[in-house]
């Protein structure tokens, strides 16, 4: 690949020259990036891309001389400005660290090459130390240093690792600083040219990629303006502008000398590494003014150097107007001489530029780590160039050792952004440099941060290189050449079963007596003074009989449930309010009004042919007293055993009063979340909650099952978990522990067959202070065993699980893990990651552990979406999660029998609701139609034709009823007509008969006719009464 490129060099060059004038006109085009709003995170080209890099893509890693070499004064090396800077406390060196030894790469360079070999990289990017080669800046080269770099290059060649060599990575010989004032002086142009020519001449035979200098922006600004870097001058903008001007011209000189003297024989490429940050318009609003500021921000950093070199040979207009006469000018000859002096675009994108960008040149906009958008900007601004990511990566705190979990995800994210830029945006990126190979001296951060793929213990004299987990991950990416789809792409086929619950999940149903229809409740008769003052006066002494209040008087019920029927769901899950029904906690006060309201809801549901699933106790964190009656809460809540007894009484009341209409009961919703609230006594709370459920279940079985035949369960919060760092056993264990703690803690005592004799390895996994997480007496165990009719799970997302970092204090009852989120997963506004495959894995895990006998019902699942109507994220969630549910049913044999979408309606602003809030007119969002389609097709519409489900006997009867109900008027009319005709006929016959038989039996005939009239009723009232 490399050789191929070098052969095409001249042709390429010719093309570039031809296309040059086009490139000019592109300047300023970069702003187009911001003008279009960024598409949502779930659009195809924004999601994590499972694909490989183009064949021949170069993978590498890099270091710089000063950061890693050490041996600052060994073998005739001269001091660099950084040596001077770090040795003097009066300079701006803030950490006090020196790089005298650093990673000691000068002595351990062979281990560096071994590390590269371990990674399986294609190239190594390193820098030559100018003061090591020329201790006096120029003149006689240091033969030992030449030998060192020759050996390094030879060894790399042996290992088939291509070198990418930087001439100047900030370590200017100190003598040049002292003699000339460093890069402020244009004398350095000639000296740099001389140094470059020497390097090209000496090493050029083995080098195809040369970098003249690394990140001149940071050299100019941090070195001469802020003084944070060597030489630590705080000369202000005027000085940094001059320094930059000299750096650009020095680079051009080096390029020209290579182009003229070395390219014909060596055929390599020369470029300069430019660093940049990235910005997005403030608050995501791309107003013209903000777009201009974004453009200016990037021009002030990247454009400063890229515009002369890759653009029109001059500084960006925005820089000229900003700095006026302070900005040095290129002469017309210089412009032509400077432009196109780079054979590819080399980009550095890392913490140094992003942090400085955030501090100095954000122009009020938001600095973001969006490498992909920056690459697009470069393409728009400077044309279709070949791009090398010459420095990519972030940093870890120094305390992070080899287990650098977060670095893995940052690498994943950055490299995937590059892949997206290649595949979707057409940016020609040809290589990626993971920065850096080994931990080293991190400039102004000293040793407080680490950027290496290999860990170096700076207190150890031999500076052993140990691969971090991010090195293992990088190796994996290189081996696979990207992120190919590793999961076998199972196709979701088939349909959901006919009996599948298509549900909506709601929280505690608000009991709303108002608005209330007051008709027929006012017993007075009024006179209306219509022509006079218009007032109403009750007529004294007259009292009308009033009607009993009816379910239809609660206008809220109908308004709420009408939304349900418009989706076409078969099931509706809602919760009762314990503290409302039993305000005192016991039966001393029973709120019969509330019970009546709930009864009305249940009746209305049955009229709508929607099956209710009723949660008896629905705790909520923000709710008053966590939804408990106040007395119970005050006496310790779930830490107090008497609450178990109180719950049993409450459940009995619910069964008694509402059981007729309920086929599915859920005793307690998410006891695993509730128990977590009790930071002290988590186990006690879990224990009591479990016992409360079991007792309520037993009670139902004993007293109500024979008549009501409902199924009773408890619903668990069931997110999926995977190890955050898949290279570490400890993370795998933590993920297992997570699942056992979240689900096993509650399900094992109820339906885990092996719970009593828990295998030893699981006890280890639980890692809890007691021998078992929850201890039960034999009697309790018996009561718990089997007390579950179906497995109810509320699933929302997948989490990364890692063990607690050892630094954090672990409180004993807490499970030993912490949760993280993968930043490459699309996520909602509330931070919920949308991970469809996790849903399937969770279902499979439950099935594996507890068998497929008990049905699983997902009693709550959904995502928040800010969109008031076009809820794209929720539509995606619904489609992708249901697709995984289908796979779970058909491919994994999961006995999944229901899916309840959380939830019906927003309370205020757009969040989880399928319908907007009442304040926003209860409008159906777009996902309602998606859900409705799913229900109609029992799956995806593009599948083969749906086998219609056979209606059950009850439903058939109901369909006849509903037909009759619809044609009520016609039926009545027809009935009456028939009757009348019959009567007429009878009358005629009767008249004829009476005429024949005279006037006998008049009394008898009368009564017979009356009897016939009464028959009118039964004919009309064949259907059940519709009044509630």
């Amino acid at each position, binding site marked *: 690949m490399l050789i191929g490129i070098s052969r095409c060099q001249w042709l390429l060059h010719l093309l570039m020259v031809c296309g040059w004038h086009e490139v000019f006109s592109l300047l300023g085009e970069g702003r187009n990036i911001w003008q279009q709003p*960024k598409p*949502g*995170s779930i659009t195809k080209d924004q999601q994590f891309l499972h694909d490989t890099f183009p064949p021949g893509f170069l993978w590498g890693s890099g270091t710089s001389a000063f950061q890693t070499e050490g041996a600052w004064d060994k073998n005739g090396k001269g001091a660099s400005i950084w040596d001077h800077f770090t040795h003097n406390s009066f300079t701006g060196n803030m950490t006090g660290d020196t790089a005298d030894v650093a990673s000691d790469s000068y002595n351990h360079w062979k281990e560096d090459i071994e590390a590269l070999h371990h990674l399986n990289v294609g190239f190594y990017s390193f820098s030559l130390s100018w003061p090591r080669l020329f201790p006096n800046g120029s003149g006689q080269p240091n033969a030992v240093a030449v030998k060192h770099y020759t050996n390094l290059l030879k060894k790399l060649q042996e290992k088939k690792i291509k070198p990418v060599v930087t001439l100047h990575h900030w370590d200017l010989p100190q003598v040049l600083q002292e003699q000339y004032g460093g890069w402020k002086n244009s004398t350095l142009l000639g000296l740099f040219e001389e140094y470059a020519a020497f390097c090209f001449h000496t090493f050029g035979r083995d080098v195809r990629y040369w970098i003249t200098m690394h990140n001149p922006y940071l050299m100019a600004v941090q070195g001469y303006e802020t003084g944070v870097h060597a030489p630590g001058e705080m000369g202000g903008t005027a000085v940094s502008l001059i320094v930059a001007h000299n750096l650009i011209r020095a680079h051009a000189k080096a390029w020209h000398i290579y182009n003229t003297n070395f390219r014909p024989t060596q055929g390599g490429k020369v470029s300069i590494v430019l660093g940049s940050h990235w910005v*997005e318009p403030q*608050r*995501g609003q791309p107003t013209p003014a903000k777009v201009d500021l974004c453009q200016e921000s990037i021009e002030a950093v990247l454009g400063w150097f890229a515009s002369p070199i890759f653009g029109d040979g001059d500084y960006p207009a925005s820089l000229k107007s900003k700095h006026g006469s302070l900005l040095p000018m290129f002469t017309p000859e210089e412009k032509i001489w400077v432009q196109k002096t780079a054979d590819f675009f080399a980009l550095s994108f890392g913490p140094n530029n992003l*942090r400085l960008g955030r501090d100095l040149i954000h122009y009020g906009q*938001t*600095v*973001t*780590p969006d490498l992909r958008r920056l690459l697009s900007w470069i393409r728009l601004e400077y044309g279709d160039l070949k791009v090398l990511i010459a420095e990519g990566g*972030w*940093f*870890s705190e120094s305390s*992070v050792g080899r287990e650098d979990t*977060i*670095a893995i*995800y940052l690498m994943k*994210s950055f490299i995937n952004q590059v892949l997206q830029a290649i595949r979707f945006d057409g940016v020609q990126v040809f290589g990626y440099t993971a920065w850096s190979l080994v931990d080293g001296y991190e400039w102004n951060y000293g040793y407080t*941060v680490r950027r290496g793929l290999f860990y170096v213990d700076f207190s150890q004299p031999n500076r052993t290189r140990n691969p971090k987990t991010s090195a293992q991950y990088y190796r994996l990416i290189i081996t696979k050449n990207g992120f190919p789809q590793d999961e076998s792409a199972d196709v979701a086929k088939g349909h959901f079963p006919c009996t599948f619950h298509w549900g909506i999940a709601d929280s505690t149903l608000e*009991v*709303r007596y108002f*608005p209330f229809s007051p008709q027929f409740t006012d017993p007075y008769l009024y006179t209306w003074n219509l022509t006079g*003052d*218009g*007032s*109403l006066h009750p007529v004294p002494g007259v009292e009308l009989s009033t009607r009993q209040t009816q379910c239809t008087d609660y206008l809220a019920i109908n308004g709420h449930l009408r939304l349900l029927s418009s989706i076409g769901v078969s099931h509706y899950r809602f919760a009762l309010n314990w503290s409302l029904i039993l305000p005192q906690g016991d039966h001393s006060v029973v709120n019969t009004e509330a019970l009546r309201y709930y009864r009305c809801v249940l009746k209305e549901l049955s009229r709508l042919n929607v099956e209710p699933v009723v949660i008896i106790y629905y705790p*909520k*964190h*923000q709710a008053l007293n966590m939804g408990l009656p106040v007395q119970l809460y005050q006496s310790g809540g779930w830490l107090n055993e008497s609450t178990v007894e109180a719950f049993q009484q409450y459940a009995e009341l619910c069964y008694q009063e509402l059981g007729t209409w309920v086929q599915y009961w859920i005793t307690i*919703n*998410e006891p695993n*979340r509730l128990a*977590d609230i009790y930071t002290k006594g988590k186990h006690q709370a879990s224990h009591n909650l479990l016992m409360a459920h079991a007792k309520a279940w037993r009670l139902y079985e004993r007293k109500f099952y024979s008549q009501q035949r409902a199924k009773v369960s408890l619903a668990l*919060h069931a*997110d999926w978990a995977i190890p955050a760092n898949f290279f570490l056993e400890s993370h795998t264990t933590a993920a297992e522990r997570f699942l056992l703690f979240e689900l096993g803690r509650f399900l094992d005592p109820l339906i885990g067959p092996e719970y009593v004799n828990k295998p030893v390895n699981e006890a280890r996994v639980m890692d809890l202070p007691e021998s078992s997480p929850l201890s039960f007496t034999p009697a309790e165990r018996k009561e718990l065993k089997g007390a579950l009719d179906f497995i109810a799970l*509320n699933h*929302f997302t997948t*989490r*990364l699980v890692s063990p607690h970092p050892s630094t954090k204090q672990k409180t004993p009852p807490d499970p030993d893990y*912490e*949760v*993280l*989120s993968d*930043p490459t997963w699309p*996520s*909602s506004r509330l*931070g919920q990651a949308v991970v469809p495959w996790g849903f399937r894995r969770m279902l499979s895990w439950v099935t594996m552990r507890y068998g497929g006998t008990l049905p699983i019902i997902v009693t*709550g699942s*959904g995502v*928040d979406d*800010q969109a*008031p109507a076009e809820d794209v994220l929720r539509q995606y969630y619904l489609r992708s999660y249901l697709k995984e549910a289908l796979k779970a049913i058909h491919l994994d044999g999961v006995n999944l029998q229901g899916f309840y979408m*959380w939830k019906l309606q927003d309370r*205020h602003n757009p969040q*989880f609701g399928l319908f907007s809030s*009442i*304040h*926003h*007119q209860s409008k159906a969002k777009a996902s309602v139609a998606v859900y409705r389609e799913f229900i109609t097709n029992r799956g995806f519409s593009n599948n083969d034709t749906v086998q219609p489900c056979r209606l059950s006997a009850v439903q058939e009867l109901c369909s006849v009823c509903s037909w009759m109900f619809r044609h009520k008027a016609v039926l009545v009319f027809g009935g009456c007509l028939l009757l009348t005709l019959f009567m007429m006929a009878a009358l005629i016959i009767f008249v004829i008969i009476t005429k024949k038989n005279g006037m006998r039996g008049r009394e008898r005939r009368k009564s017979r006719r009356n009897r016939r009239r009464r028959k009118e009723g039964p004919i009309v009232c064949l259907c059940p009464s519709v009044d509630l």
Partner: protein
Amino acid sequence: KSDGCFIFIFTSFDPYYIIIISEQLAVIFILFSKHLFLFPGLLLLKSVKPGHTVIQGQTSSLFLCVDRAGHLRGQSHYSEDECTFRELLLADGYTRFLSSHYGFPVSLASRRSTDLHSLPFTRFLPLRNALTSVSASATPPDDLRNIDVDSDDLFGMGLNSMISPHFSAEK
């Protein structure tokens, strides 16, 4: 806070009041028997912090304030204690405006009763707005929220916590 328009109707048998509040502007109609009074002016409702609003006359620029004795009055200078009201959404769909500092409800009746809850004419019923003007609130793109370039956890991976939308639902 909310971007629709509301019509507040104060329901009672007689007299009753209708307050029409469109987006931020309010017109007060008072229907007393069959006489319709149109109060001169529009009221501006502004949220100062979650749940707390300031009510200001649009033409008079007077703030609606309540003093220590519970008397409502218009006042030209804004005082946080006296001129902010807590908007209380009642379970039945009505709202009450209570003085943030003193707790007196805004009532359209002269105050005779001492019991705050039985004080008449304090409940306002928000009705749906038939006029459409839903402005999409501009917020930063989702992926920019947790970014911290000073942290080694650049994307805020560690900000995840075990939250269930059921258990920790919207307030």
